[in-house]
């Protein structure tokens, strides 16, 4: 089962790499936000999977919980910061 988790983590890393295309070449700033924000959920899943691979899930689950709070706050702050009337 550890090999299965390893393969799933590699697939999720590949998906992060694809979504960064939108973060680099996105036409508007909001496309860049969703391209980078897509990394947040994948990184949280990879953290939990790494916890199962190393058999230390009791420690990694707290780290991923804190990471998901950080992702949520940062997305809200980005949305507030880039909101400007008639910018586009």
């Amino acid at each position, binding site marked *: 089962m550890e090999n299965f988790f390893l393969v799933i983590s590699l697939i*999720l890393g590949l998906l992060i790499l694809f979504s960064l295309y*939108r973060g680099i070449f996105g036409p508007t700033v*909001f496309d860049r936000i*969703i391209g980078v924000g897509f990394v947040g959920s994948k990184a*949280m899943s990879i953290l*939990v*999977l790494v916890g199962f691979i190393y058999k230390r899930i009791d420690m990694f689950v707290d780290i*991923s919980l804190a990471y998901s709070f950080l992702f*949520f706050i940062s997305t809200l702050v980005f949305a507030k910061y880039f909101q400007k*009337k008639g910018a586009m």
Partner: protein
Amino acid sequence: MSIVAALFILGGTFFFATGVIGILRFPDFFSRMHATGKGDTLGIVLLLAGLSLYNLGSGFSLANILVSIKLMLIGVFWFLANPTATHAILRAAFDSGLMPWTKDGQPVLDWPPK
């Protein structure tokens, strides 16, 4: 139990992959946000459900049950937070004057209203 967990995890990975395809292929910001917002939420909830099932499969001790409850708590948090974040970004983009894409380039509605 681990077979069922593997099926849940594969389903979550499938929905992540559909989100990435939507991000890369859709024509404008609003449709991209639609793809990633829904695919991400369902994928996270499926993947965490599968992982907590797998964690329970190694025995019903107190520590195992606590870790599974924490995993489901992360799932519930994402289920509430990801649509909220999507809504905030969409609202910011619409207030900044970004218009939905149409095939003939005509705006779909008159905005701001006169």
